[in-house]
């Protein structure tokens, strides 16, 4: 990138008339302008981040749901009911005579409860994560081990029920908590009358 020749005029009155040298240099300023214009356009019209997604599998109507229903032991069952204004009701075990408690979506709310309930698995998953970093485990191996851990027979089974007053964010939040707390056995089920009754009793 040499300097621009500025020697105009000094040799004007030379004896020999030389052929005028045309500068081979082109002014690139408009090109730069164009480049940045296009950059601006692409930055505004496109998105760099792809949206994240959460994969869920719902039981289909055709499958027999009874087998899924009966495996849950009362000691493992957790029922979560999404109420209005970001309130979460939950209880353990059977619906009859259950003691319904209230919590919220904060990290020390629902997550703490679920982690306590799922203590064993959560701890193993935590250990696995540490091991993954330490030993530079391959991603697929990690996933395989992770799903093996999550299939623990003693892990809680969560029923998620949403009232009509709850919104989509609540649902995603709860599904997210399932992910965070390494709970693999959960289902979104319809709110049934006994559960409705439980909540109605709680909020006079």
């Amino acid at each position, binding site marked *: 990138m040499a300097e621009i020749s500025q020697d105009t005029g000094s040799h004007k009155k030379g004896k020999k008339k030389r052929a005028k040298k045309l500068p081979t240099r082109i002014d690139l300023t408009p090109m730069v302008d164009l480049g940045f214009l296009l950059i601006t356009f*692409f930055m505004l019209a496109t998105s760099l981040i792809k949206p994240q997604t959460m994969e869920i599998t719902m039981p289909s109507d055709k499958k027999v749901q009874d087998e899924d229903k009966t495996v849950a032991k009362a000691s493992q069952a957790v029922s979560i009911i999404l109420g209005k204004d970001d309130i979460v009701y939950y209880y353990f075990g059977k619906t009859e005579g259950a003691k319904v408690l209230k919590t919220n979506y904060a990290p020390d709310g629902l997550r703490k409860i679920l982690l306590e309930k799922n203590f064993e698995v959560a701890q193993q998953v935590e250990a696995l994560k540490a091991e993954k970093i330490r030993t530079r485990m391959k991603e697929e191996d990690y996933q395989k081990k992770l799903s093996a851990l999550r299939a623990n027979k003693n892990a809680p089974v969560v029923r998620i029920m949403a009232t009509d007053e709850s919104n989509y964010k609540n649902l995603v939040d709860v599904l997210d908590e399932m992910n965070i707390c390494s709970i693999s056995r959960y289902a979104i089920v319809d709110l049934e009358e006994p559960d409705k009754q439980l909540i109605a009793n709680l909020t006079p």
Partner: protein
Amino acid sequence: MPKAKVKRKSTWVDMTAMCDVAFLLLTFFMLTSNFTKKEPVLVATPTSVSEIKIPETNIMTVLVDKTGKVYFGIDGQDKRRQLIEKMASIYKVNFSPEEMKKYTLLELTGNPMQAMKAFLNLPAESRDLPQNNLGIPADSTNNEFKDWVKSAREVNPELRIAIKADEKTPYPVIKKVMRSLQQLDESRYNLITKLEGAPGRE
């Protein structure tokens, strides 16, 4: 002693390097980014810690806005053409070739089939107005949404379902959509979310 002449320096700056940088960045942006899809409504998706990325092709998008209106669309213009032809024959609506063409250019639409013809004939700038998008009916009695999903599945069996709903959408609407999918035996689907703590979070 004569005064030293201050040499006039040229103000010319070499733009070649600048140009290189500009085009390098341009190339980067062109290759890494993908165009934002045009959506009829602005939807604020909820956040999650899930890091699975959504695939770019073979996606059927179900968009649910704050008020509970359902929009539907699949990717690929030729696929959309087949889809609208199928839907037209189910609902016995006669679309002119121009209307079909207009439909194939739209990523997402949210209107009952009876109102679709009028919607497609609207000028492009008024299509996004809320009063022109009635939402696809997904009730148990009048469920056009199921036909959309079913037809889309016939057009392209590899489609994956992505539900993109606003975080303030009331649950009954989501339940309706999920119920419809369940009845169609579509049990696997994706919920589109933002990464937790990502910029632009409300």
